């Protein structure tokens, strides 16, 4: 917490070194988060890239109410939601395939190197309803508190806890069925 406060402060004063440290500290976590939320490596990489670029463009406007980690996680979640909405529109318009082709041709090399465990888990998470998936990933991987997730999703803490519980039950059921 203190370290993050120092980093933010130095960043606001123009320290490139502070920016690099923030990037190195949180990029893996954010990539994991985006990847789990989207189950699409390319899109996850783009989102984390865009989040950091956006973050670097206006550090002076940054006002943290909680932790830097939660702030960055929320940025990722918001962009994931936008991506999902765009996808839904494109699917309706029959453009999804074209976008996928474009996305994969943009960057032949992958930023995230998938391991089998992550792939299995992401596949299982992808089968959960979106809201349950978001709660589980934000709470367990993003280490966000239920209260913060409730604010993000605009529902009560009880609802978030229920989504978390039902989501875990379903995830367990899915993973058990793969054994």
């Amino acid at each position, binding site marked *: 917490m*203190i370290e993050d*406060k*120092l980093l933010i*402060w130095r960043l*606001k*004063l*123009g320290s*490139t070194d502070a*920016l*690099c440290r923030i*990037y*190195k500290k949180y*990029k*893996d976590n954010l*990539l*994991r988060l985006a*990847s789990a939320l989207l189950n699409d490596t390319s899109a996850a*990489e783009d989102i*984390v*890239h865009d989040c*950091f*670029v956006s*973050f*670097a*463009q*206006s*550090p*002076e406007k940054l006002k*943290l*109410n909680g932790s830097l980690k939660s702030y960055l996680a929320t940025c990722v979640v918001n962009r994931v939601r936008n991506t999902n909405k765009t996808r839904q529109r494109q699917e309706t318009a029959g453009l999804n395939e074209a976008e996928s082709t474009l996305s994969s041709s943009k*960057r032949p*090399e*992958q*930023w*995230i*190197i*998938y*391991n089998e*465990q*992550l792939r299995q*888990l992401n596949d299982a*998470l992808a089968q959960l309803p979106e809201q349950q998936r978001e709660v*589980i*990933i934000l709470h*367990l*991987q993003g280490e966000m508190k239920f209260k913060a997730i409730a604010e993000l999703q605009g529902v009560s803490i009880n609802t978030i806890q229920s989504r978390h519980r039902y989501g*875990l*039950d379903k*995830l*367990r059921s899915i*993973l*058990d069925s793969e054994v």
Partner: protein
Amino acid sequence: MRPAENIEKLVKNINIDTNAKIDEEVLGEVVKAFEKSKSKKTSATEQNIWRIIMKSPITKLAAAAVIIIAVSLGVNLVTGPDVASVVWGDVVTHTGDVDYVHMYYFKSRGNEFFRQFEGWHAHGKTLLRGDNGDATYDDGRISQRFNTYGMLTDRKPSVFPNGQTFLESFSIGLLSEKNQQFNEQIPASVGADFLIYTFDPRPSESDWMKSIVIMVGRNSLLPIQMKCCQKNGDYDLLIFDYEAPEQPTEFFELPVIDPANGAGKVLLDGEDVMIDITGAPDLKTAVVRLHSESVDNAGGVSLSLDVAFITEDGFRSGTNTVIRLRADEACRCGVGSASGGLDEWPDGKYRNIRFSPWLKPTDTEDTYIVEIRCRVITKTD
């Protein structure tokens, strides 16, 4: 069936690897965006700090924290089983060798730090830079503060009066050769690397302070961290290191002091003096009156200064009647909405005039030059 907690661990502990080459590429793009934004960056918004500081119960500590200490690492090693019996007086003795220090200073309010500073001290000179873009320079003789716009806002004697050292000042006397009260105190706890001393407040601070906890390097016997806890739950946190880091380029190059927006000759206990204001949009005139000599807390003679402003539209602001200045000093002041909503601006909108009067003596007794630096603050600033 997997127990639920195993599923949770699985999700929590999953790790990914990343392609180092792409990692570097992305970081390069992020840094490029950052550098580009820096070149476009405009001055940060100045916050209404003067009023907060004036009202803060920890003004003493804040003022003292302008100081950063001088420390060198030429210290005796204190190791072995007797470390738990190292008395506070030994720490005080070690700090006497300090010649350089770098410091971070955080002021908490509620659950967050509302002010942060970074400071450097070397060879008797101190620079303290705040997260608002303000900077205070203390050369051991005069302390001068510049706000984020580079405007001189405060000028007063050094915060190291009578040769007082950094630690004496900002530990509120705890780290002073003259202080005998706590010298026999031993650490409250001893860690692998630190000794922790906890002090109760003295009667003079007991109305607002709860405790001071100082973490001292076990080998160096130099303060590493100091936390001053208040009764309301807020605290000040200071972190020190004594290895010379890269100093800011402005250490210790005092900024050029911009010309005043207006200046006028003012007679003690005379009439109101109208001072023309230029270079401060919306402001036309400052109305100044100087009166009532009085002996202040520090034993010096202070003068009272009343200041009001007249805008280009002819509106006269409220009058600030609480300014106390000694000769050749300047201080941050304000009139308008921010000082309690006393002013009824014609358009009903938020306005505050920030200004800094500098009282300069002349060859004639009872006559002074009052320099005014000022600007109007609105909600959009």
